[in-house]
């Protein structure tokens, strides 16, 4: 187990290092940099002035120097300075993190609450009308853009309840109820989409487990359907579901990018889009790295959890 963990950690670090190269290179491919954008509204700017600003921001140096510099900064916990806001990047990102985490947690909760029961019902009632309806329902969730679903929800609220969601962020200290509503709606939009994958994996894994001998034994003992399904079958069927929830996390963050924009929530994902448009390298680099770390850690955690949950899975060493 210990060697396995160490092995996985080493791979994770190498993967992150590779990602940092990819991210850095991609951003440097971009035509036009922050200086061009800053001055695009200012009219004529003398080349010497431009040079001075580039020097101040450190983007006149060779790429590899910039890269090594970035890595060194990250390792020492310094996330660099935002070009645009002239502030340390961490100071800008920090207040955004809880918003995104709250949204991600709520979305995952919704995804599980919708996905697992529908998956179980669908598997138990395999090939009936109900099964078809539930599968179409979940596939529809996978097909609708989360941002559009968000827009339609807002539109519906405005039209039928004449209620306009708050246009700016409401902290829980200000108004807990409004804060809850503000988060529940986008979480529902994102969670519905994520629930589709959970539903499908629950369904197929439960169908597989239901064919096993110990389930036949449970039936033979005369136990009721409810006990067999919820106590015996689901326990084993949920293991792959746990994995999917871990993988889902990466998709979730993608979904949050647009949902935060639609619902005007000041989260990390929305800020990422703005930073990309501004070519604010330190912010984009660090945000994408941050997302990569979260994704890799959650995958690692799920794999570890798998070994704990299922005694049949024991890692060598």
């Amino acid at each position, binding site marked *: 187990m210990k060697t396995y963990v160490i092995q996985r950690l080493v*791979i994770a670090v*190498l*993967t992150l290092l*590779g*990602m940092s190269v*990819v*991210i850095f290179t*991609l*951003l*440097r*491919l*971009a*035509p036009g940099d922050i200086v061009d954008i800053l001055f695009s509204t200012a009219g004529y700017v003398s080349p010497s002035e431009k040079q001075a600003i580039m020097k101040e921001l450190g983007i006149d140096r060779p790429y590899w120097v910039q890269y090594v510099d970035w890595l060194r900064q990250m390792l020492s916990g310094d996330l660099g300075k935002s070009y645009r806001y002239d502030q340390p990047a961490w100071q800008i990102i920090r207040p955004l993190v809880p918003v995104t985490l709250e949204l991600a947690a709520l979305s995952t909760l919704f995804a599980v609450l919708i996905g697992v029961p529908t998956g179980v019902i669908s598997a138990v009632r395999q090939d009936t009308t109900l099964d*078809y309806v539930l*599968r*179409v329902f979940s*596939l*529809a969730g*996978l*097909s*609708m*853009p989360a*941002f*559009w679903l968000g*827009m*339609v929800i*807002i*539109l519906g609220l*405005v*039209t039928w309840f004449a209620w306009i969601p708050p246009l700016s962020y409401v902290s829980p200290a200000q108004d807990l109820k409004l804060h809850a509503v503000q988060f529940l709606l986008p979480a529902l939009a994102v969670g519905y989409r994520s629930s589709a994958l959970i539903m499908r994996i629950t369904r*197929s894994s439960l*169908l*597989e487990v239901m064919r096993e001998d110990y389930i036949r034994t449970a039936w033979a003992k005369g136990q009721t359907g409810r006990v067999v399904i919820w106590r015996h079958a689901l326990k084993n069927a949920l293991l792959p579901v746990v994995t999917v929830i871990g993988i889902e996390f*990466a*998709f979730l*963050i*993608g*979904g949050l*990018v*647009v949902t935060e*924009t*639609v619902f005007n929530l000041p989260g990390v994902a929305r800020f*990422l*889009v703005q930073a*990309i*448009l501004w*070519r604010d390298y330190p912010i*984009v680099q660090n945000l*994408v790295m941050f*997302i*990569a770390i979260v*994704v*890799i850690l959650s995958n690692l955690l799920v794999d570890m959890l798998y070994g704990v949950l299922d005694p049949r899975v024991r890692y060598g060493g």
Partner: protein
Amino acid sequence: MAVRGVEIGIPAGARPRARGWVVLARFAQKKPLGAAGGVLILVMLLTAIFADVLQTHDPIATDAAATLAGLSAEHWLGTDHLGRDIYSRIVHGARVSLIVGVASTLLGSVLGGIIGLLSGYAGGTTDLVTQRILDILQGLPLLVLALVMSAALGPAIHNVIIAISIPIIPRAARVIRSSVLSIREMQYIEAARSLGLQHLRIAFGHILPNTIGPFIVLCTAQLGSAILVEATLSYLGLGVPEPYPSWGRMLSVSAAEYAQKAPHLVLFPGIAISLAVFGSNLLGDALRDTLDPRLRGS
């Protein structure tokens, strides 16, 4: 039974063609949802091809006299804030969505497929290193990667295609590799090797044709997410540039501003996106059940 009757009643000369229909009919009978998905994709394809015939107005012509008009005989699905006809824009949007979706799916799947084929066939260290590199690409959320890519490359239709295809590469490589791994061990490959055939010829000539099933499934499933990512990128202003009418951009912030006054501005493009993605998801699911024997019965 009905299907068999048709087969018997057909003259020998017309047989090959009729058999194609029978296969389709049987597929529709066994997988009604998949067939419905196929119909949706077919409708989208026809709309894209005949967009110029189906349009009622010029999709990019503005009309200051009819801004934000509701649904009428003149403008079937109303007009947007510049007075452009929504119906005609949706019809032309199918073209953009399909071109970007199909092109990026094919590009990503073919590149990924080749990587998966070679990596799976070579095995050993080559395989290990390739897989780790693909892990790097796959570790990032698809949308985030596409977002950074399209921002880096600049707004142009071919750049959007590249940006969406890159995240597909590792997924395609995974799928093809796993089927190559099992095909590689088969006896006919051993036979080919004992004949002294070259590795590349075995890989492309003998293994590749047998991965076509998973490849088709992969492409159909990825088409939906490619269309979705294009819509999202365009919505954020990082996708297909003006003047091409794109479903995603029709929903963008400027449209959202008028949503209250003109809900059709938000509703119809979104329905178009959802139906297109829904169709490809339905078809992809049914094809996977039919073509992928490992998943059969589950």
